[in-house]
């Protein structure tokens, strides 16, 4: 149903409609305005987005700054864009990038901007400061509005960027608004984020380079560790194995799987051979986390021992925390065996030279260096200070009569004329002046070219054997003499023993056919008697001789007067002749003497005096004079007998010498006397003249 409307009603409706249209158009205007605003926002957003996109594409910080400055002008629609970048540490260069305006003015402008940057009026955000031109002084270059912000990116880097608008040249300028602040804040955040991103990227790039470099290093190291012939063990800080290389596995016989997580000492250490001190040193060094180099005896999986030369280094991280041990091990069994063998040979050699007492020296002609072994040093009685001048001392010590010869002989080797010489010389020891007989050898060692590179020699003290040899020669000469004497003795004794026997034999053959002739029988029997006596006499003399040589002195106090008298009585009894016999004494009759020896000597002397009396004179005499003093006794026997020729006087004491054809004796009597006299330390002295007589004197020392 349709209702009729009044005017009023219609008017009211129109007015209402009018109002609504007005409202609508204002809404429309508002909508248009909103549309504009949105368009502006969109444009700004697009500009910010473009900056973002462009900035992200930049490759260097310089490009980025250029983009920032361009964007300031673009976004804020200002005349000048400025960015100042500073780095405290100097890692980056300080930079001023600008666009618009006159370049010469920027430095001054920048100073003013810095002054302003500390007095921001948009205090809510500490990073963003915006200023109105009014705040700038009369003389300022800045006569217009601006936006400026000083931002600390991090501790090191700080930037200041500004947008400057000249009021005079920009008629549409409306002064700073909240909108500017917002845009600036957003832009600032964007710059910070992008700059941080660029800086981080740069840092990362550098890190990447470092990492790449260390990766190469690591690759190299691991290549070495894997392929080296030395065994490599990497353990954790407790010494538990993390990794071992191929060489270690070959040497030890254990695979990586077998040893992982174990300590090397748990399976490698030999129970016996390594020195306890070395093991202690090893564990101490590991405990103290020190570098260590040591040789120990290890046992491989197959039970075979090997000498292991170990170098161990602890590894620390950047913070100084101990993280690992790295050990390099080298099997030096061959070297060690060789070394031990050499040491053994050397000690054997030393032992041989020491026990053979051979002095050894070595001289290097090029360096002049010389080495001596202890035996030579001892022989020459060198002190430690003198060892260096050893050769001079040695030369000085050579006997003066041997020196020139010995040195020139050695020089033959030094000059290369001979390769080896053996020679003998004497030394007079420098300290004790003792004489030493030396048997020496000098030998040279030559290189391939034949140059003498080393002279070596041995020196042997043969004094003992030399003296022994000398003594031996002396003894031998003596023995030969004795042997000759013995031969002569046997020859003569056999003659003297056989002669009377053979006479008896002849006499018996005569007796056999003359038994009826009493006169002849008597004569022959008498001659047999004489022969028997002679035989007996000879035997007694030989016994006397032997008794003297084999028995020691027996000293008795004897009455020499009585002894001489008895001897004379016995002799006279045999010879039955008239002789003037006289004994006179100076000093005591009692003398300490060997009775057997003194009586043998005196019996010989007196019997000779009687036997060889001068048969052509009527008053033969034998005078005995005894002079007994505290020093000794002198017995002189003087006769006026046949005498002995000058020629024979020296020979009468020789064994079996018979001076005269009228001699009855064996030729052994005076020889025995001389032997006895020598034995008791006496001396016999004889003076005689043919046809006048003989004086024989026996001098005896006082015997105790």
């Amino acid at each position, binding site marked *: 149903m349709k209702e009729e409307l009044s005017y009023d009603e219609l008017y009211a409706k129109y007015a209402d409609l009018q109002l609504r249209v007005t409202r609508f158009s204002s809404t429309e205007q508002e909508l248009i305005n909103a549309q504009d605003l949105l368009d502006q926002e969109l444009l700004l957003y697009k500009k910010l987005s473009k900056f973002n996109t462009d900035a992200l594409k930049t490759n260097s910080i310089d490009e980025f700054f250029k983009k920032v400055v361009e964007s300031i002008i673009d976004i804020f629609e200002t005349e000048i864009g400025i960015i100042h970048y500073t780095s405290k540490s100097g890692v980056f260069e300080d930079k001023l990038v600008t666009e618009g305006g006159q370049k010469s003015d920027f430095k001054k402008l920048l100073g003013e901007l810095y002054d302003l940057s500390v007095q921001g009026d948009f205090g809510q955000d500490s990073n963003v400061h915006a200023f109105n031109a009014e705040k700038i002084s009369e003389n300022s270059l800045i006569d217009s509005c601006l936006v400026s912000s000083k931002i600390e990116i991090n501790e090191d880097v700080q930037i200041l960027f500004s947008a400057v608008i000249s009021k005079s040249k920009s008629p549409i300028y409306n002064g700073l608004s909240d909108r500017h602040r917002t845009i600036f804040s957003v832009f600032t955040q964007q710059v910070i984020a992008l700059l941080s991103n660029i800086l981080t990227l740069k840092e990362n790039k550098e890190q990447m380079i470092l990492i790449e470099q260390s990766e190469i290093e690591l690759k190299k190291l691991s290549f070495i560790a894997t392929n080296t012939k030395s065994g490599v063990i990497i353990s954790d800080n407790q010494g538990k194995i993390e990794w071992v290389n191929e060489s270690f596995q070959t040497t030890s016989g254990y695979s990586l799987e077998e040893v992982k997580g174990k300590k090397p000492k748990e399976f490698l250490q030999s129970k016996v051979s390594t020195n306890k001190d070395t093991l202690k040193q090893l564990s101490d060094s590991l405990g103290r986390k020190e570098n260590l180099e040591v040789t120990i005896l290890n046992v491989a999986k197959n039970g075979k021992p090997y000498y292991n030369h170990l170098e161990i280094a602890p590894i620390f991280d950047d913070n100084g925390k101990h993280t690992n041990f790295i050990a390099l091990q080298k099997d030096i069994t061959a070297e060690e065996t060789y070394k031990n063998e050499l040491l053994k040979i050397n000690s054997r050699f030393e032992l041989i030279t020491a026990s053979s007492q051979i002095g050894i020296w070595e001289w290097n002609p090029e360096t002049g260096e010389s080495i001596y072994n202890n035996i030579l040093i001892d022989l020459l009685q060198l002190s430690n200070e003198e060892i260096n001048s050893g050769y001079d001392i040695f030369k000085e010590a050579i006997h003066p009569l041997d020196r020139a010869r010995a040195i020139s002989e050695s020089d033959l080797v030094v000059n290369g004329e001979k390769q080896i010489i053996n020679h003998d010389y004497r030394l007079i020891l420098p300290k004790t002046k003792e004489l030493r007989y030396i048997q020496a050898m000098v030998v040279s060692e030559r290189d391939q070219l034949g140059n003498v590179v080393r002279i070596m020699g041995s020196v042997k003290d043969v004094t003992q054997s030399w003296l022994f040899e000398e003594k031996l020669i002396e003894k031998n000469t003596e023995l030969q003499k004795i042997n000759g004497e013995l031969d002569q003795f046997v020859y003569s004794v*056999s003659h003297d023993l056989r*002669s009377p026997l053979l006479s008896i034999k*002849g006499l018996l*053959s005569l007796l056999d056919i003359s038994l009826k002739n009493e006169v002849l029988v008597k004569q022959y029997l008498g*001659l047999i008697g004489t022969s028997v006596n002679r035989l007996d006499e000879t035997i007694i003399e030989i016994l006397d001789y032997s008794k003297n040589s084999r028995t020691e002195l027996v000293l008795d106090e004897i009455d020499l007067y009585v002894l001489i008298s008895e001897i004379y009585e016995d002799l006279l009894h045999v010879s039955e002749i008239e002789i003037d016999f006289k004994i006179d004494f100076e000093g005591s009759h009692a003398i300490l003497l060997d009775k057997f020896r003194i009586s043998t000597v005196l019996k010989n002397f007196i019997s000779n005096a009687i036997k060889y009396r001068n048969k052509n004179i009527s008053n033969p005499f034998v005078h005995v004079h005894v002079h007994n003093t505290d020093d000794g006794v002198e017995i002189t026997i003087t006769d006026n007998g046949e005498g002995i020729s000058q020629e024979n006087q020296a020979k009468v004491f020789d064994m079996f010498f018979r001076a005269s054809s009228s001699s009855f004796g064996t030729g052994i009597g005076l020889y025995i006397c001389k032997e006895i006299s020598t034995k008791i330390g006496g001396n016999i002295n004889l003076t005689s003249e043919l046809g006048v007589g003989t004086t024989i004197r026996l001098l005896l020392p006082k015997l105790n």
Partner: protein
Amino acid sequence: MERFLLIDDDDIIGIVHPAIIHQVFPESEVILIKSCMEALDYFKEQLAANIPAPDVIFLDINLPKMNGFELLEQLSEKDLSFLKHTQIYMLSSSIDQRDMAKVEANKNITGFIGKPLTMDFIRKKFSDNSVQENK
């Protein structure tokens, strides 16, 4: 009849040997000389007096001053020509091999006889014919 020269210093031998020779050759002449020096003098005298040399010499070895071998060495050309028909025997108590060797080596020596001389030896060697044969 032979003439014997005996050179020996032993008094008893000086009695025994002539006696033995005389037992075999009672008519023979036996000259006794006690040393080699005297023997040399004797040769000289005999030569000077133009007396023939003895037929046989018995020369002892072991003599004082100069022994029998030495005497033979001392003989001059004259002595040797004087003694060229004389048999010289070394007559000694020696049993030493060296003496034997010396006898062997000396062409002037006829032979060696060990003491004492025996009548057997004299008889065998010096019967009238044998002296000439042996020389």
